[in-house]
C-alpha cells in the first residue's frame, strides 16, 4: 500500500483534524503515542474501497464524502427526561444505565446506584490514568489492518469500561446509551471494553440513538471489545436506531469467548444512511455456543452492511448466525459471513442464514457466505435467500378484511420476528420489535 495514493477530501480531513484535536483527546502520554500510531496507520491505509475484497460491497472511500468535525469535550445540555425520550422503547426496561452524550460520559444522566457484580468506569478516566490494559489498547492495536478501527483508536473520546465479576449474575441489563444531540453535525468515536468474568451472567445493551432536533447528519465510529470468561453467559444487544438523514454508523465488535461459554449477540440497524457492522469472534475454549443474529431495515438510499468473521480455532464449538434485512426503495443490504474452521477444530457445528426481504424492485440484497473449512469432522451449513412479500399471504390477510398496509406490517414483523426471537430476554426482544415497528410505520 503506497503512501503516495491520492487522498480523498474525507481522508485528508480526518488526518488534519487529528493534528488539531490530539491534545484535547483524553489519555496519558503513552496513550497519546498509541493514538498517534493509529492516526498514521489510518493515513497510510486510507478509507477502505471496493478493490479490497472485504469492502467490495461497501466502498467507504467513495461513500464518505467528508469528515465531520470531531467532537471532543462535548457540553450539550441534556436532562434525564431527554435521555428517556431518546431511548424510545429501551426506556421502559429496568436497566443499569450509563449515558454518553455526543461521545462524553454524563454521570448525572446515568444510574446513580451501583449494580452488584458490575464495575464500571468511563474510558476517558481510564485512558487518563494510563492503564492501557484496561483500555484494551494493547489487544486492539494487534488488528492493525483495519482503517475504521485505527480511526477509532486515534479519535476515541469515551465509552464504557466494564467488568462483570467472576460468578456474578447481573440482576438488570447494563444499558450503554450513546445519545446524539445538538444541531451541529459531528464525528463521534467511542469505545467500550467489557470483561465478563468466569461463570458470570450478564445482559448488555448498547444503544445508539438521537434526541429529536439533533442534526440530520452525523458520523459515529464505535468499537466494543468483549472478553467472556469460561462458563459465562452473555446476552449482548446493539440497537443502532438513529433517526437522522445522513447518519454514518461504523461499528466493530471484537469478541473472545472462553471455554463452555454461551454468548448470544444481536444487532438492530435502522434509520442510518450508511452502516458497516463488523463482528469478529475468536474461540479460545472448547464447548462454547455462539449465536449471532440481527435485523437491518433500509429505505431511501440507505446502505447497511453486516460483516462477520467467526474463527473456530478450537474443537467442539457451536456457532449459529441469522441475519434478516428488510429493504425498501433503492436501499441496499449486505451480509458477509466468513466462517473459518481451523484444522484442529474438529466437531465444529456451524450454521449461517441470511435473508433479504425486498419491498421494492430497486432494492438490493447482497449476501456472501464464505466458509473456509480445514477440519474434516465438522457439520457446517449456510443459506441465503432473497424474497418479496408473499402475494398469496397478502391476499389471505386481505380477504379477511385486513387492509394491505396492516397486512404488510404483519408479514414484515413475522419475517424479522424469527431473528428477534433469538434474544432470550423477552422485554429486550419486545423493545427491539417496538423500534422496528416505529420504523415500519414511517412508510
Amino acid at each position, binding site marked *: 500500500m503506497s503512501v503516495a495514493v491520492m487522498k480523498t477530501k474525507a481522508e485528508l480531513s480526518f488526518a488534519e483534524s487529528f493534528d488539531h484535536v490530539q491534545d484535547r483527546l483524553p489519555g496519558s502520554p503513552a496513550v497519546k503515542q498509541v493514538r498517534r500510531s493509529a492516526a498514521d496507520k489510518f493515513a497510510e491505509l486510507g478509507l477502505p474501497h471496493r478493490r479490497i475484497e472485504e469492502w467490495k460491497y461497501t466502498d467507504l472511500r467513495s461513500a464518505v464524502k467528508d469528515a465531520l468535525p470531531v467532537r471532543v469535550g462535548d457540553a450539550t445540555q441534556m436532562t434525564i427526561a431527554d435521555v428517556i425520550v431518546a431511548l424510545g422503547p429501551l426506556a421502559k426496561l429496568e436497566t443499569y444505565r450509563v449515558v454518553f452524550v455526543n461521545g462524553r460520559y454524563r454521570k448525572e444522566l446515568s444510574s446513580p446506584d451501583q449494580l452488584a457484580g458490575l464495575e464500571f468506569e468511563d474510558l476517558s478516566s481510564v485512558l487518563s490514568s494510563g492503564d492501557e490494559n484496561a483500555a484494551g489498547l494493547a489487544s486492539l492495536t494487534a488488528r492493525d489492518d483495519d482503517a475504521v478501527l485505527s480511526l477509532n483508536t486515534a479519535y476515541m473520546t469515551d465509552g464504557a469500561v466494564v467488568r462483570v465479576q467472576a460468578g456474578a449474575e447481573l440482576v438488570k441489563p447494563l444499558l450503554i446509551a450513546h445519545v446524539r444531540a445538538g444541531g451541529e453535525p459531528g464525528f463521534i468515536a467511542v469505545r467500550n471494553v467489557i470483561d465478563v468474568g468466569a461463570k458470570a451472567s450478564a445482559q448488555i445493551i448498547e444503544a445508539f440513538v438521537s434526541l429529536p432536533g439533533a442534526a440530520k447528519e452525523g458520523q459515529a465510529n464505535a468499537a466494543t471489545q468483549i472478553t467472556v470468561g469460561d462458563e459465562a453467559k452473555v446476552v449482548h444487544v446493539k440497537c443502532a436506531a438513529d433517526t437522522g438523514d445522513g447518519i454514518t454508523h461504523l461499528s466493530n465488535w471484537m469478541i473472545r469467548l472462553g471455554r463452555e461459554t454461551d454468548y448470544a449477540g444481536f444487532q438492530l440497524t435502522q434509520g442510518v444512511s450508511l452502516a458497516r457492522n463488523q463482528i469478529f469472534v475468536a474461540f479460545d475454549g472448547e464447548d462454547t455456543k455462539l449465536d449471532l443474529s440481527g435485523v437491518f431495515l433500509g429505505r431511501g438510499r440507505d446502505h447497511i452492511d453486516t460483516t462477520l468473521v467467526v474463527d473456530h480455532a478450537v474443537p467442539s464449538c457451536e456457532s449459529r448466525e441469522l441475519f434478516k434485512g428488510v429493504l425498501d426503495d433503492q436501499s441496499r443490504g449486505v451480509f458477509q459471513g466468513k466462517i473459518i474452521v481451523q484444522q484442529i477444530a474438529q466437531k465444529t457445528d456451524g450454521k449461517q442464514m441470511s435473508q433479504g426481504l425486498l419491498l421494492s424492485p430497486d432494492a438490493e440484497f447482497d449476501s456472501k457466505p464464505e466458509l473456509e473449512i480445514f477440519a474434516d469432522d465438522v457439520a457446517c451449513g449456510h443459506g441465503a435467500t432473497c424474497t418479496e412479500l408473499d402475494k*398469496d*399471504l397478502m*391476499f*389471505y*390477510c*386481505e*380477504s*379477511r*378484511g*385486513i*387492509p*394491505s398496509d*396492516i*397486512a404488510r406490517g*404483519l*408479514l414484515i*414483523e*413475522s*419475517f424479522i*420476528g*424469527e431473528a428477534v426471537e433469538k434474544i432470550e430476554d423477552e422485554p429486550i426482544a419486545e423493545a427491539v420489535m417496538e423500534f422496528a415497528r416505529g420504523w415500519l410505520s414511517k412508510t
Partner: protein
Amino acid sequence: MLEIKNLHVKITEEEKPILKGIDLTIAKGEVHAIMGPNGSGKSTLAHVLAGRDDYEVTEGDILWNGESILEMAPDERAAAGVFLAFQYPMEIPGVAGLTFLRTALNALRRKRGQEELTTPEFMKLVKEKSAALNIDIEMLKRPVNVGFSGGEKKRSEILQMALLEPTLCVLDETDSGLDIDALRIVSDGVNALRSPDRAMLVITHYQRLLNHIVPDKVHVLAHGKIQRSGGKELALELEQSGYAEFSEKAA
C-alpha cells in the same frame, strides 16, 4: 343477494379464458352448491368473488346487494361481508393465530363503523366460538395454521367465518382432506351459520358434504359455464353418473 351476470374471467396476462359466461343468483338465506370436474373453473370463481388480482374479469359483472364489487379490493369486499374459506388455508409463520384474528376482526369492525373489541371481550368471543368447533385455544397461540393438520386448518377457516360474521360465505372445497369426524364438525359449524341474512356458496367435488350441508340448489360447472342446475337431488344423480356427460359438451 349475489348476482353473477355473464361473467367471463381469464388469468391476468394470459389469453386463455377460464370462465366463459357464468350466470348465477343466490338470494339471502340460500345455500347453493357448485360441483364439477377438475379444471372446470370452480376455484377460479371462488377466488374471483374474493377479489384475487391474479384473475381478470373480461366481461360481465358481480353484484352484491345490488352493488358491483368488481372495483373493490379484497379487504373492502370482506368489509362488505364476503368471506372465502380457502381450499388450502395458508400458514403465516411468526403471526400468532389470536393476533391475526383480532387484527382482522377489529379491521372489519372499524370499517363497519363499530367499536373495536377490547382484549377481554375478544378472548371471550374466541373461546366461545372455538369451543363449538373443538379447537383448543392453545392452538391459536401458535402462528396461524403452522403445524395444523388438514382438518385443523379447515376448522380454523370456519372459526374465522364464525368470528367475522360474513353475509356471503364462499366455501372452496372445504371438504377436501377431511376425515368423517372433521367433516361433521366443519359441517355443523357451517350449518350453525346458516341464517336468513346469509348467502352461501359451497364448492365441492363430492356429494358427501352435501349430505351434511344440504343445499337449496345445485349447479354443475364444466368448461367454464354452468351446464345444469337443479335441486339437491342433482347432486345424487351426479354421484351415480359422474361428470362424463359434461366432458363431451362443447366449450
